[in-house]
């Protein structure tokens, strides 16, 4: 379970202070899939970063499975992140210096998981790219890169997936394939996911939908979008 309470985050540039997040509360139960809409610059990425402990809020607290992340050191936050969270980015963000297999080995290794070869084969099959095991990211198409990125986010079996506009940089068709994949490997496996997106095609996955405005979240009924 993820609990955010009274989160505030602001940036000061020069002498203007910008409140990105303000008094924000959110509770996410295990296995829930949350979709986050909002204009560019409204603070969605900032929120994901705060949940993952990449960034710290200026006010408020984040609790994951009972542990208060906001009170932890940088190192402790990192250890929680590597173990519990998988990240999916808009720009795929595979490590260019590593092959597909090696990119997948990375989280396993960081979590001290041995004998990952079977896992890698399995997940490559799952994302439909078993023959790309030894390719470098630059040789893959955008959709393929994003599949590998999803595989990387999942391979160490984290409980939480954070996805920041995963289809934002893909064409429509490919985007649908990615949504389909997320449905199979995230939703059907009962993982928690928070996904930022602009695409209406993902609504089918969602348990709850929020939109971000003026540093706050408002829940929208799923049905409102389905019409």
């Amino acid at each position, binding site marked *: 379970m993820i609990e955010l309470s009274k989160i505030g985050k602001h940036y000061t540039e020069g002498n203007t202070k910008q409140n990105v997040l303000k008094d924000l509360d959110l509770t996410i139960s295990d296995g829930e899939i949350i979709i986050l809409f909002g204009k560019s610059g409204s603070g969605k990425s900032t929120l994901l970063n705060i949940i993952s402990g*990449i960034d710290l809020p200026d006010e408020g607290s984040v609790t994951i499975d009972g542990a208060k992340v906001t009170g932890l050191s940088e*190192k402790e936050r*990192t250890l929680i992140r590597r173990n519990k969270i998988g*990240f999916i980015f808009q720009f795929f963000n595979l490590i260019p*210096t590593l092959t597909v297999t090696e990119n997948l080995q*990375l*989280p396993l290794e960081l979590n001290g998981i041995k004998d990952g070869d079977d896992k890698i084969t399995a997940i490559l099959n799952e994302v439909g790219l078993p023959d790309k095991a030894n390719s470098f990211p*630059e040789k893959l198409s955008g959709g393929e890169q994003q599949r590998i990125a999803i595989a990387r986010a999942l391979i160490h079996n984290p409980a939480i997936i954070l996805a920041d506009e995963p289809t934002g940089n893909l064409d429509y068709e490919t985007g649908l394939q990615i949504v389909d994949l997320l449905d199979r490997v995230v939703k059907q496996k009962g993982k928690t996911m928070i996904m930022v997106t602009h695409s209406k095609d993902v609504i089918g996955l969602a348990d709850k939908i929020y939109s971000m405005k003026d540093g706050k979240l408002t829940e929208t009924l799923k049905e409102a979008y389905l019409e």
Partner: protein
Amino acid sequence: MNSLTRSSLRYLIKHPWQFGLSILGIAMGVAIVVSIDIANHSSGKAFNLSMNAVAGKSTHQIIGTSEGIPDSIYFNLRVRDGLKNIAPVIESYVSIPDSGKKIFKLLGVDLFAERPFRDYLSNTGTSIDGELKDFLTGPNSVVLSNGSLAELKMKVGDSLKVFIGGKERTLYISGKITEDERNTSTLENLFICDIATAQELTGKINRIDYIDVIAGSADEEKRLRSILPDGYDLQKSGSRSQTAEQMLEAFNINLQSLSLLALIVGLFLIYNTMTFSVVRRKVLIGTLRSIGVTSNEITTMVIREALIIGIIGTAAGFLAAYFISKYLLIFISQTINDLYYVVSVREIYISPMIIAKGIALGIFATLLSAIKPAREASSVHPRSAMIRSEQESSLLKKVPAMSITGLATIIAGILILLIPTKNIWLSYFGILPIIIGFALLTPVIIILVEKILSPLFKYLFGITGKIASRSIVQNISRTYVAIAALSLAVAATVGVGTMISSFRSTVIDWLESRLNADIFISAPSLVSRRNDAVLSEDLLEKVRALDEVADINFYREIEINQDEKTYHLISSGISQRNHSGFQFKEGEPADAWKRFEEGELLISEPFAYRHDLEVGSMLALKTDNGMREFRVAGVYYDYASDQGLVTMYHTHFKKHWNVKGVSGISAYVKEGFDLNTLKEKIQMLDTDGQQIVVRSFKFLRDTSIEIFDRTFLVAKVLQLLSVIVAFIGILSSLMSLQLERKRELGILRANGLLPSQLFGMVGIQTVMMGLTAGLLALPLGNVLAAILVYIINKRSFGWTMQFDLIPSIMIEAILLSLFAAILAGLYPAYKMSITSPANALREE
């Protein structure tokens, strides 16, 4: 300012690290080149000024035989032949024990004849204060300039203790010369006295050193020549400065070449920065092109950025050079005093040539290194938003071609080096293609090293190790320049270090076999490598007669000035025991020694090289009885003088030169006698006031090695400076590399990599780069050493040296490059590890 310039300037300001570091790199390169130039120029200028002070307005000098000119000859010329514009001169050195070993020049002149020559003396009534009568006739009276008096903290009327030719004397300061602006520096080093006083002080009784002449026309010169007695010569006034310049030529060129090395390393640095800034701005440049900026404008933009670096760097370099040169000057004039001649440099002189050369080098180097990046920038296609990995793979594709070009360049360099020439510049020029060739081979070697090390690093450090090692190859267009620059600087360290070491052990071997006597006696000398003071032959006999002495060697060194050149001739009273100490390069030893004792010459290797002589050649020497030809019987290895030596057996020498005294004596202790007793006994001998230095073999060997090491101090300092420049290079390239990988590192952090792990990863990468550079430096360094030993030194000084591979230097080289790389990596690694991943990810 148009917006293109503005954007470009902002880029510079926004990347202070890179641009600051490349400015520093160029500044250091320029500073080193310029300061070496200034130091060389200043020492030369100081010598010339002192020569000019002595020569005054004279156009020529009449030089006599080895022992100078008898008074009578001068009087004959003046009275019998009615020559008016001539003046006698005695020159010697005065060393002042209490003044921190300062050396002044003693100039003995005849005031009556002086008037036309040295104008600072001619107007004696007004410009020489004090009593003219004392100045002329008082015992041991000298006059000094105001400046010299101040320097010595003395005043008119004081007495001071000095050494002249190894004998202690007390001088009385009877007057001072007031300088005007024209001659301040001219008078700085002079003690002036009457010629008779000088004769007494120097022990040159009834003799003078040379006669100054003002010959207004060619006719006058001709007439003079016709009345000069046999064995006398008319020499142009400037020729002594010229000889001095020639003596130092090789020494200077070698220093200059070493200093250029630092600039070459600096050049790599700019190249690296400019390439990086272009690659990083590909998207921006593509955008500019798409909105209508021409490719020429892009080229101009990049070149202009480079020029800004070049100009600021060069200016800063000059400023630094001004300070560095003061210190270099101390080392360099020390070496000149050790090896060549007495010079005392008190001021820094900068010539327009030096400034022009420094500016040209700084700016030219900058432009040269900006050409390729500028071309690359101009070839960016409009709307190109190429991701960098594509650019990198295109460099990877070029690796085979680069390697082949590299090999070809190296071969070209070797061919240049094989050209038989005595031109040192050309020889150094041949090294350049070899360096460039190595740089071109660097990428392929990096790839190979990575292939080998990558599995190892993966085994040791896991995935992070692999990312570390692989990103070196993936970013090869940048990493290779930094690695090449570091390995070049380290290779230079290996090269120069190995050369010095090889040379050193050659010299030590030579010293040990040559100095095979037990005790060495000489007079204190001003130029360490030469004995300019003499001992009496009496002393020689006294030493020979001692009970403890089994046998002795002795020699006398004289300078012969002929054909505007100075030859060093040794009259040798060598004992049979010492024959084994000579290794012959040419000539069969038994035969050579036999012929030597019959009057033929043995010449040292540098002499043979300089004058193109071999066994059987005839050499004409100016004896006291006119020119005589001598046959060369052997060429021996000798490292005492790079000017070369001519050796003649003493009994034959005596037939041709009327020279008394010996420069050095060495003695063998009889079996069963004690060395220290002998030493004490020699020190007790009555030397008639002559100071003598009695040294054991070990002491002499150690002082010789000390001088040797001092000589190479500057070289060592220079190569250290290039390592610093290379260090800046690797620092700047690691900074930019990590900067560019910010996002990648951010992703790793998002995935759970700890800051410490990130630090470690950047560290591993750094270690790998350092290791690669070190490994590369070993072959290049030893090749450079071999070139220095077999080609450069041989051509500069004519010395054959052994060449040793020195493991300790190679281990040091690897450690040095590792250390430099690690030190350079610390900051970027730290900086990256503390960067918030949120920030790193935000940037796109």
